[in-house]
């Protein structure tokens, strides 16, 4: 390979250079701004994590697997995974190979940013550089891979159902410009490399096309306009990139190291949150996942639109979306880049100012004395007090198993604090946590049993109850059954389906214990979407603004999902889910404790 042009420059590289310098400057300044926005402690932690070998290696591995290969997408849908990884990995390889070529054949040009991209324009093949053939082959191979990916992307625009997606996001104007310039980059590259293939060399794609073009056009002067077009397409793409969803390409490479360093969203717009918002590729997987999407008017209330509104600084919509969310966590469960939508909303809620701020200074923990000496303390919580069957069955099961248990709130106690926490009112939640902790400590128990996953989650995550085991009744009763303390007889004729409550499943990662316990009482079938992808019942306390009528369709859809296999009864482990489903159910809805109590011998 030798330089074809002595000065190594042609004016057509200018559009590319403008775009490239703009993107580099934008990202460079952006990184500095975000680092500045992080708290001092977070910044220190992040910078230290970059030099720690273990995290550095994890960063490289995660960036490679997630940004280039898109492992999570492959697991979701193979065609979708192939489409994304062919474009991302193919493009990455073309850039890497381009740099290798420059470094091997014309090392003195390595400082020129545009040289690896337009290598085939600037060089001519010589007798001695036949080893270049392997590069030509690889270049054509990866270009073909990208072109297949682009073709799939075009099909996806027309029929997203082929890719397992019912709904995709509606692109904004700039997104559309970005999309079309991205689509045109690679066909243009193929055409311009084909035009010069007889000079610079080529392989299975470019050489035959070169013969065709020369036979068809005959005039070698035609190739310059195509190189111009290629450079302009790249330039446009990079100029609009910061303002489109394609910003996720550089942002995700920043998000992964920050997440690996253990950073969390502290402010809904600044620092880590900003990187999260920019990393959202707008794929729209969260639209299908969001339980609210069954209602057409709520289609734009899912995380992808929250991110878009944050980018557009639309305060009214940001507040609206943040308050409407059920906080079921499914969007972050299915998110390909791991955007924590519920946490962003929670931080947004925390910004709100109230004229009346609740306090509980007048409530004394010793006005809730716990009587008795049993080591197991059962806290029913607000929701269980409204579903007394659960409380009764739990006490009955405990006595059947011969466990001496006491109730923390026989005549109603205090709220656990989770509803306040989810409303973004940390101060109030902390006060309730302090009061409940004092009551629990005074009782001298060693196990705290809960029948409500909402309570369970805050007791697990926010209470400091060292030395006391916090356990949900589904786990506890399963242990009693497995250890033989609780005898349960199986009704072979009855089929049950288990509904994973959001707070217990996605919230605390408890999926298998309730199922194991239920298997002792009956046959189990699965819902259409289950485990981490179960659908919120619609009754969630997470939503502050969604009212009863609007939740109806959400509940009906969740119920339909549960009864796909026609079970005899629906079983759940949350009093709120139980209550919500009971309003519309066409078959019995029972709590796990009630099912076990009916099936157990005294």
């Amino acid at each position, binding site marked *: 390979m030798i330089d074809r042009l002595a000065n190594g420059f042609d004016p057509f590289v200018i559009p590319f250079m403008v775009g490239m310098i703009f993107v580099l400057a934008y990202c460079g300044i952006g990184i500095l701004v975000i680092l500045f926005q992080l708290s001092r402690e977070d910044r220190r932690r992040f910078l230290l994590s970059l030099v720690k070998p273990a995290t550095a290696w994890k960063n490289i591995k995660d960036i490679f697997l997630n940004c280039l290969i898109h492992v999570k997408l492959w697991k979701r849908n193979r065609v979708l995974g192939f489409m994304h990884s062919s474009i991302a990995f193919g493009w990455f390889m073309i850039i890497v190979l381009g740099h290798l070529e420059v470094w091997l054949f014309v090392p003195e040009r390595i400082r020129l940013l545009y040289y690896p991209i337009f290598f085939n324009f600037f060089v001519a093949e010589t007798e001695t550089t036949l080893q270049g053939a392997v590069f030509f082959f690889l270049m054509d191979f990866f270009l073909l891979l990208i072109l297949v990916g682009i073709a799939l992307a075009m099909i996806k625009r027309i029929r997203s159902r082929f890719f397992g997606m019912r709904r995709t996001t509606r692109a904004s104007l700039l997104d559309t410009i970005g999309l079309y310039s991205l689509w045109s980059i690679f066909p243009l590259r193929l055409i311009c490399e084909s035009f010069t293939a007889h000079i610079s060399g080529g392989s299975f794609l470019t050489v035959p096309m070169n013969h065709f073009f020369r036979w068809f056009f005959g005039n070698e002067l035609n190739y310059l306009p195509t190189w111009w077009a290629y450079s302009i397409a790249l330039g446009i793409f990079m100029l609009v990139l910061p303002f489109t969803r394609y910003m996720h390409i550089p942002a995700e490479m920043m998000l992964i190291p920050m997440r690996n360093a253990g950073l969390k969203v502290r402010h809904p717009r600044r620092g880590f949150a900003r990187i999260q918002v920019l990393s959202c590729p707008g794929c729209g997987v969260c639209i299908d996942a969001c339980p609210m999407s069954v209602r057409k008017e709520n289609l734009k209330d899912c995380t992808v639109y929250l991110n878009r509104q944050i980018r557009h600084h639309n305060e009214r919509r940001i507040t609206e979306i943040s308050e409407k969310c059920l906080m079921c966590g499914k969007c972050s469960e299915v998110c390909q880049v791991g955007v924590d939508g519920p946490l962003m909303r929670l931080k947004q809620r925390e910004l709100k100012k109230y004229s*009346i701020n609740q306090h509980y200074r007048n409530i004394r923990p010793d006005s809730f004395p716990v009587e008795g000496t049993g080591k197991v303390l059962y806290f029913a919580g607000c*929701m269980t007090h*409204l579903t007394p069957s659960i409380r009764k069955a739990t006490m009955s099961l405990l006595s059947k198993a011969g466990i001496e248990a006491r109730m923390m709130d026989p005549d*109603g106690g205090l709220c656990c604090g989770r509803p*306040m926490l989810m409303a973004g009112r940390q101060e*109030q939640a902390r006060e309730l946590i302090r009061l409940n902790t004092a009551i629990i400590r005074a009782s001298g128990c060693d196990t705290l049993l809960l029948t409500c996953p909402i309570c369970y989650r805050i007791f697990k995550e926010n209470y400091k109850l060292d030395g006391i085991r916090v356990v949900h009744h589904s786990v506890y009763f399963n242990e009693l059954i497995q250890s033989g303390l609780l005898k349960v007889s199986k009704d072979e004729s009855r089929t049950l389906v288990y509904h994973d409550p959001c707070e217990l499943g996605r919230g605390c990662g408890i999926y298998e214990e309730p199922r194991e316990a239920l298997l002792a009482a009956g046959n189990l079938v699965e819902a259409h979407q289950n485990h981490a992808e179960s659908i919120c019942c619609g009754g969630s*306390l997470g939503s502050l603004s*969604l009212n*009863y009528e609007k939740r109806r369709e959400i509940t009906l859809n969740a119920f339909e999902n549960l009864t796909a296999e026609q079970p005899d009864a629906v079983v759940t482990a949350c009093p709120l889910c139980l209550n919500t489903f009971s309003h519309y159910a066409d078959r019995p809805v029972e709590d796990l404790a009630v099912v076990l109590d009916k099936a157990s011998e005294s």
Partner: protein
Amino acid sequence: MDFGFSLSPSSAIELDTLDSALYRKLCRIEPGARTCIACGSCSATCTAAEHSGMSVRKLLLGLQRGRKAEVERMLSNCMLCGKCTMVCPRGINTRRVILTVCRLYDNVEGTL
């Protein structure tokens, strides 16, 4: 002698000094507030009732009668637990009522 209940002292609804801006704004934000039938389910289930006399029924009445001090005292112990929402036969989003009143109490013109 303690009969286990007491009579409320007599009080008057002074409509000429009543400022119902907050109530009107509340009804715009959560129209369900107007549909309350004062059945008292929320009062009966409320976790904060025994601490601050909280009751969404009374809260709505208090707003319509301009009894601001009472409203403020009732709300002071609310824990947002959602029992009132769960039992409301009219399906009123009582938690939204509470949060809206807390937010706009001193600042009716404020944005939500």
